[in-house]
């Protein structure tokens, strides 16, 4: 493992040392809290984004979501140019399995699924997508697809992972920038519901976690000079001199 990451086990052990404990008697409890802390940080600070290629089931036009899936970031197909071509979101896609469309088919003004704007029907409006459409089906743990350019075969799914499902041991890790935030979370939660601990200590632990989380977010979102220059140069375009 590179220095970029530190395992949850190491974070827990270091916290035990911080607290002056000589044994690992509390290890399992802290580890349990740490797993929740990892999710908390992965959602909005570290954003462990995974990318997978998934085959679309030709019978149902769906993909089954990975077990550690929390929320998608991008859904795309891979183009022959090596770049991702994003699909569009459509809330009108049917989620009911086996639902029967009316017969005879409605007229095209009502049931307009012929062109989907792909061929630029006059007056149809923009915002359409030639790559296809998706809709998340939370109830079934799937994503539904539709495409008028043919059956979608494979899609690239970029999603936020919870960081711990389906992995064990050293593979459960956190970015080094968020190490202190995770340790602060574990400490805060470990004392939060103990009656014998005074309120000041709990308040301090809570503030410490949010402060460490803020620091971690700031570190994760660093913006280099080169990136700034690149962003600026994108605005430069050739234009005719008048």
């Amino acid at each position: 493992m590179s220095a970029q990451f530190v395992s949850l086990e190491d974070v827990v052990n270091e916290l035990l040392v911080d607290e002056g404990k000589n044994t690992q008697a509390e290890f399992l409890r802290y580890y349990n809290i740490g797993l929740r802390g990892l999710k908390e940080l992965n959602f909005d600070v570290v954003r462990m984004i995974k990318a997978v290629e998934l085959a679309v089931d030709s019978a149902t036009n769906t993909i089954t979501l990975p077990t550690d899936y929390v929320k998608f970031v991008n859904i795309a197909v891979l183009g022959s140019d090596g770049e991702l071509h994003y699909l569009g979101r459509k809330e009108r896609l049917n989620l009911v399995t086996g639902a029967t469309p009316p017969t005879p088919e409605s007229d095209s003004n009502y049931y307009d699924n012929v062109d989907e704007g792909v061929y630029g029907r006059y007056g149809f409006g923009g915002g359409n997508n030639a790559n296809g459409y998706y809709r998340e089906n939370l109830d079934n743990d799937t994503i539904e697809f539709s495409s008028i350019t043919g059956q979608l075969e494979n899609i690239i799914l970029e999603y936020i992972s919870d960081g711990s499902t389906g992995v064990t041991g050293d593979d459960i890790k956190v970015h080094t920038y968020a190490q202190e935030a995770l340790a602060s979370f574990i400490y805060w939660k470990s004392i939060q519901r103990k009656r014998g601990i005074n309120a000041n200590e709990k308040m301090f632990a809570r503030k410490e976690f949010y402060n460490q989380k803020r620091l971690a977010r700031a570190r994760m979102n660093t913006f280099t000079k080169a990136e700034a220059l690149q962003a600026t140069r994108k605005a430069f375009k050739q234009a005719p001199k008048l």
Partner: protein
Amino acid sequence: MATTRKKLAEQVLRIIEGGNVSDDARIDIREVMVLVDQERDSFIRQLIEDRFYTKSTTTNKSELEITGDFVSLETGLSVSSNKVELPTQPISLPNDMGIIRVYSSTTEYVRMPYGGGTSTLNPSPLYNDTVTKSGKKFWYIQGTDLYLYQDSTATINVSYIAVSSSLSDTATYPIPADLESVIVKNLVETFTVMKGANEDYKNDNIG
């Protein structure tokens, strides 16, 4: 040389009897040894809790600090069917902290809370998922039986604080040297009071 329970008891007895312990001594050495054990157990809890109060602002019992003063180390214990019986009983402390460390030449075992199940189904539902995810190997204690959750056979070393009465009379008595004199002084005080009491020669059992 490390002290033993018997040595301490003999010292107490010598002081009480003025240096020479005769066969007619009213106080039996077995009685002194029992009190030596009770003094040690009482010290262990008292000292550990004192360390806990002075080092921490919290009142969390799991903050107990345990140092090597009272610890026994048993090496080469053979585990079979996930279980090994400890030679002596560990002292009862919060979070099974009477047992300091369980390890083999290749593995460091971590404590898991007793879940009330069998050796293969012990973890309570609360920790089942965490046990799997951590990728670690665990032990738990049930009376004097120490169980390894994942390993059915192994050769392990265990360091723990044994209950005083479970140590043999001539075994090394794990106690800090400075506490030996405190135990002796306390017991001499106790027996001096006892010795000063008038004996009741009247038989109250008649009629």
